[in-house]
């Protein structure tokens, strides 16, 4: 059964550098939460402080309401999976999984039964007697996962566990991880710099920037309504420009290249202020180039990239500084080619503004 995890005002510095700065988290039992951000954003440090491998300068960590801030890592009963597997090279897969049970002096028969169950759980029954160097990366990470689960920790921490693996194995293990987490009802904190991974796995994503929490939300929320400039830029593909907000007869608009786009701006934002405007490539629509409406971007296709279900167009908009990205359903993109003029309409509701 998963535990609740609460992190209160966690702060940690390494010398002069602030690694994490006033981080607060509330994680419900059985939730899968990802800490997402670029390298150096403090996500791994946060995880290591929760594990007890680093000591915070200030702040508290509570598991099921109990303050464990001063409990040494070996007594926190938290499972952890490392990026580079960290299997014991002198022990077989079986003995690696048995490690925690042996340290806890469990009876031999009980250890054997439990380890067999765990290896079955990660589909590695037949690899029990192999040493880590005889296993592929994916298999090693499965062993590491089984090992972390041996003493039934209510909280599992994973530090970029898939980033050292090939794409195909990564996808397979990602699904496996989600299945296990649901099946065992584990509370999971997952560190990654890969937003697609975070989106696919998480109930909730914590976007971190420079040691601080930038936004917490469900994947869909985060994608549709990024709350900060940083989240807007980091999560998903987007077209972003810094531009001045203008108002005329109660209608708001921004300049984009030589054209103007209508936007919904909050009433309190004054005209003339510099804002960051952002819209997603799939929000735009191609309209008939022979019939240019006001409020559409005119441009020329620079690059056509087939991505399977959608085709991505890089379009050079007249008077703009860099190409904008437009995703079109591939079915409708068949006749599009480089050099072709297009008109792009962006619905005002799809454009988000950041002060």
């Amino acid at each position, binding site marked *: 059964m998963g535990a609740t995890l609460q992190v209160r005002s966690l702060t940690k510095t390494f010398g002069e550098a602030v690694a994490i700065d006033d981080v607060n988290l509330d994680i419900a039992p059985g939730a899968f939460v990802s800490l997402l951000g670029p390298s150096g954003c403090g996500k791994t440090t946060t995880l290591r402080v929760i594990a007890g491998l680093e000591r915070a300068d200030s702040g508290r960590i509570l598991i099921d309401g109990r303050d464990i801030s001063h409990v040494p890592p070996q007594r926190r009963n938290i499972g952890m999976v490392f990026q580079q597997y960290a299997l014991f090279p002198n022990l077989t897969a079986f003995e690696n999984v048995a490690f925690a049970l042996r340290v806890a002096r469990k009876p031999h028969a009980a250890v054997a039964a439990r380890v067999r169950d765990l290896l079955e759980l990660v589909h590695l029954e037949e690899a029990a007697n192999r040493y880590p160097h005889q296993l592929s990366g994916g298999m090693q990470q499965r062993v590491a996962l089984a090992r972390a689960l041996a*003493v039934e920790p209510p909280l599992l921490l994973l530090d970029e566990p898939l980033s050292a693996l090939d794409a195909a194995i990564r996808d397979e293990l990602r699904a496996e991880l989600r299945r296990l987490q649901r099946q065992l009802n584990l509370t999971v904190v997952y560190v990654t710099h890969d937003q697609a991974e975070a989106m696919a796995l998480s109930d909730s994503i914590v976007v971190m920037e420079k040691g601080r929490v930038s936004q917490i939300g469900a994947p869909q929320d985060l994608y549709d309504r990024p709350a900060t400039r940083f989240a807007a830029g980091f999560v998903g593909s987007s077209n972003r420009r810094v531009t001045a907000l203008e108002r005329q007869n109660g209608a708001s608009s921004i300049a984009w290249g030589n054209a103007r786009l209508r936007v919904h701006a909050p009433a309190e934002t004054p005209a003339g202020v510099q804002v960051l405007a952002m819209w997603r490539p799939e929000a735009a629509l191609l309209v008939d180039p022979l019939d240019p409406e006001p409020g559409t971007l005119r441009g020329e296709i620079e690059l056509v990239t087939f991505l399977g279900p959608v085709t991505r167009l890089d379009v050079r908009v007249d008077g703009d500084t860099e190409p904008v990205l437009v995703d079109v359903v591939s079915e409708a993109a068949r006749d599009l080619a480089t050099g072709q003029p297009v008109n792009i309409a962006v619905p005002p509701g799809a454009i988000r503004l950041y002060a």
Partner: protein
Amino acid sequence: MAIVMTAEETALEAPRRFRRGPLGPLLLRVALVGALLYLTLPLLATLLFSLATVWSKTILPEGYTLDWYKAAITDDRFLPTATHTLQATFGAAVISPLLVVPALLAVHLRAPRWKPALEFLSIIPWALPGVVLALAMIRAYVSPYNANRTALLILTYVLISLPFMFRSIDASLTSIDARTLSEAAQMLGAGWFDIGRRVLLPGIMPGLMSGILLIAALGAGEYALASLLAGSGWKTFPIYQAQAQNVDGRVASALAIIGLLYVMVVSLSLLFIAGRRRGGAGPGMPVANK
């Protein structure tokens, strides 16, 4: 249809890559045989000489005998000098890891920035000629404090073995990523005692073994320090060997072969111990390489 190659499949490909082309294998074999001859011919000659009745005007000895071995072993000097060498080796093999292992663990687990300093210090004894080192030890400890010369010899062996011991254990700790493994063990509920016993000790075992092996080889062949430091009061095996050389080359050859057999036995038993502890040799785990 895309062909997906899994990690297992690519891993299996690797060992085959040296088998290409007809010229490569031939050259490899010639190089191998050449190196083997170069290394074994002096040994073979020593072995033949130690078994020869007379070997002066012929290509091969005129006759064979074990008399020289008998003479070497039954000599009054054999047992005491062999015992002294074993004692010196054992002493150094115990003290050296006691100095090196804690220091290296501290550097690997807590303070990596001290490693270059430690590395530099461990090299110094190796850079000094044996005679200089011996005289320095005498000037520093025997002249002013009248230190026990036997103990001093053992400690000097420790000093000389530091670079070997340091490097081989350092390589072991690096190859197992001691810090991450200790953290993984901690997260599995292990305290420092369990981490030492179940993770670090097996991890450094190969390095420890090759370090000890090098001390054994040092003790079996080192003359300058032994004669200058312990000298006539506490003769070691190499001193006996040198004395025998002045009397009869064939007895000296027999002693050389005995010394060699000793190092071989030590080396094989260390390999055996290391192999058993480890269960199976893997990549990145150095084993005693002698």
